[in-house]
């Protein structure tokens, strides 16, 4: 690995930190806009063309706000967790092949899929810690809900996320993405559909936005956060959604590779990548728009009664199907 300027540029600017930050802000705007249109509203429309700068303006405003740490809060944890969870989500996106290679400008390593999933589980745990350290009843309930929800849904998520690796024959994200001549969403829909549902739960979107159900427990684990810390908490939520979309794109939509590619592939990689991310967000938001929020006992029951067995079954089906799947893909090559 060579530590020259371009390496740092890649990490800090493109396709690393700054690019992903702005992608997250853009996705936040996109999410709000299409959600608003689905609900017959305008959505953000004042800041910048079509309100595209609204999320940026929101964060700048939050950074100027007073930053309060409650007297009873567990101070070190309370201060650290917003930054840590944000960094962890950001770091986990670094391992995805955004422009053909990952941010560290290599093809990744065998098993980085599992590493990324582990990072995200850790990030969820920091969200739990952030609620727990606030020592506020609402935060406490929100934190407990996060643990209940994520412990349950991490298991089917891992099982389902590994199923594409079976067909690709590799646990490397770059390889899974590059071997998809036919997107796995079409090749193994019985994995894709449950995966999207579980992802909805992982991203705390309706009907699974239970840890921060505002009419029940105010802002859940984020209730006590204000100013900069709140900015980082909500930024990490944005990055989390981008992460969910990127994971789906990489595992089921063929990553940055697209059917139309001429000239410099790097430009096309980015275009296809962003387009696919937006498609995934549209799917996520659509489900959110047509559902009411479930209750924690509903989703725990749904998880252990349905999602976990379905995940295992579709994994087993994929194991049996993978030789056929691979030869099917050869046909399209």
């Amino acid at each position, binding site marked *: 690995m060579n530590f020259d300027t371009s390496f740092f540029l890649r990490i800090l600017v493109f396709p690393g930190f700054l690019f992903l930050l702005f992608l997250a802000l853009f996705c936040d705007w996109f999410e709000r806009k299409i959600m608003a249109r*689905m*609900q*017959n*509203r305008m959505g953000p429309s004042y800041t910048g063309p079509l309100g595209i700068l609204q999320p940026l303006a929101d964060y700048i405003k939050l950074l100027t706000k007073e930053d309060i740490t409650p007297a009873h809060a567990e101070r070190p944890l309370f201060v650290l967790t917003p930054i840590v969870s944000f960094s962890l989500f950001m770091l986990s996106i670094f391992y995805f092949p955004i422009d053909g290679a990952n941010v560290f400008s290599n093809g990744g390593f065998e098993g980085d899929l599992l590493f990324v999933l582990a990072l995200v589980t850790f990030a969820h745990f920091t969200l739990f810690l952030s609620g727990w350290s606030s020592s506020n*009843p*609402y935060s*406490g*309930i929100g934190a*407990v809900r996060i643990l209940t929800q994520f412990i349950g849904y991490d298991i089917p998520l891992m099982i389902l996320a590994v199923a594409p690796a079976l067909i690709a024959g590799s646990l490397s994200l770059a390889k899974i993405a590059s071997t998809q001549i036919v997107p796995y969403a079409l090749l193994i829909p019985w994995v894709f559909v449950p995966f999207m549902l579980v992802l909805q739960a992982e991203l705390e979107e*309706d*009907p699974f*936005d*239970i840890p921060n*159900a*505002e*009419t*029940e*427990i*105010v802002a859940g684990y984020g209730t006590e956060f204000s100013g900069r810390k709140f900015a980082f908490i909500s930024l990490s939520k944005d990055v989390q959604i981008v992460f969910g979309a990127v994971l789906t794109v990489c595992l089921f939509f063929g990553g940055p590779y697209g059917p139309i590619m001429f000239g410099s592939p790097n430009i096309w990689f980015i275009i296809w990548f962003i387009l696919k991310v937006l498609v995934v967000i549209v799917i996520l938001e659509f489900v959110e*728009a*047509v*559902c*009411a*929020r*479930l*209750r*924690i*006992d*509903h989703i725990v029951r749904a998880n252990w009664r349905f999602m976990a067995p379905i995940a295992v079954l579709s994994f087993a089906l994929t194991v049996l199907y993978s030789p056929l799947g691979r030869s099917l893909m050869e046909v399209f090559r």
Partner: protein
Amino acid sequence: MAPEEEIINLIRSELQGNALEYNAPRPRRVSVHVRPGAHREAILTLLQSLEFTMISTITGIDLEEAVELNYHFWCGKAEVTIRTRVPKPALEIETITDIVLGAALYEREVFDLLGVKFLGHPDLERLILPESWPKGQYPLRKDWTPNLSDKFRSLRKKPVRARTTQNKTNGGSVVNVVLGPQHPALHEPERFLFKLDGEVVVDVEPRLGYAHRGIEKAAEQLMFFQDVHLVGRVCGICNVAHTTCFCQAVESVGDIEVPPRARYLRTIVHELNRIHSHLLLLGITGLEVGFESLFQYLWRDREIVLDLMEKLTGNRVMAEFNTIGGVRRDLPVSLANETKKGMSTLKDRMNFYGKVFNDDPTFGLRTKEIGILKLPEASKLSVVGPVARASGVEVDVRKHDPYAAYDEIPFDEIIYKEGDSWARLMVRLDEVAESIDIITYAVDNLPSGPYRVRVPRRMPEGEALSRIEAPRGELVHYVKSNGTAYPERVKIRSPTLANIISFRQMIRGCYIADIPAVLVSLDPCFSCTDRMAFIDVNSGQRWVWSMNDIKAKSRLEEP
């Protein structure tokens, strides 16, 4: 024999000499004056002989040498007022909470504002005034004026902390969580102390009184025609209901005949107001259960009603349409057609929402079989309106005690038997459809003629009780006139005060996530409920609606 006469004969035969005076001044209104101490006997007679008896409220009136208590009961066919006088200075009377569970709060209200002691009441504490309120100050007494600012300056200086009952923890797993006075699920300030075991609600302690404005006392300082606008401010959402009810009471006192056109116009605006209120509530339900799209859609369609309201009355929400003797504006033909068009659009939309409420699986999971209030509990707690009708109690005032033009307009009373949150929402959804039909019928059959009569400012001596079906349930206004332009007493009993007591019954054993969904299915309106006290309350003032009170009400569930 007319039902009024039947009731009079019944009480006369039971009470013999203890009943001093009877009269039935108007159809479906009976009042019986009994000797002090005989009120219990009279009420027992009502409870035992008439199968459907629920308490409406208790009105206390300060007469120089005594306090007059009026116990208002709805007996299925007529509103019976049992009147008795409690002599000063002792001011003591036996309680009726042991025979009428629903009277607990009303007795405390009278105790708080007039200083009448109810002997044997399980928990005779302040209900409305803050705990730091000076002893011996009773705002609704005639010799009390609000110009006692010196006495109350101290109130503002030392806020009294809310009394929190100590945790009776079972092994420390019960957590107190305060919901409100400011909380995203509450659209008006109110405080609920929930005792939670994990995600399950063990108990709840509601506290009223964050929106007190002292409207009853203020009403005595204003003339009748001014009071119409004051009572409209009791509650912004159902302002038409309040003004209609008040105007009807005053018209009964003054024997004023309202022209038929005005009665129909009142009905139209009243029903528009009901649609607006119900759609608002159904939308908020969507918000509370995390179904934001439903909320946005319902509120968009509510604009149809608000636009019609604005064109008809001049205001989107505060209609200021009713006045004593009729209404203030006429309905032109062009607007009548527009109203019909708007109603048919809304009807289509309601069919769509009916499908959503019936079929959406996530919505069903959040509302069906949750917050259950069964028929026997509902009738014992004297709940009113959609809450009662969702439990199968037939209490639609429009049907059983018709006012305005409801005796001439065909419509159905919506009854559901389930008693869960879903049924309470469905009652409202179906009522919107019913209201659309009522409006269309009323517009089609609008009688010609004047829409108001001019009335004098002075009203003759007398009293009247007016009941109407507000969007949230039975609303009671009692007006007493002393022959001047100023009322002697205005008493308002809003539907939420009757309904909020059932919340504890509904919520125990539910999950945290059910709290907003169940609470909203009651359609609580705290500004209605809190209208009675008189004080410039700052945020430090708090008072308690204690457990015992609710226990007295919930006694029926213990074996």
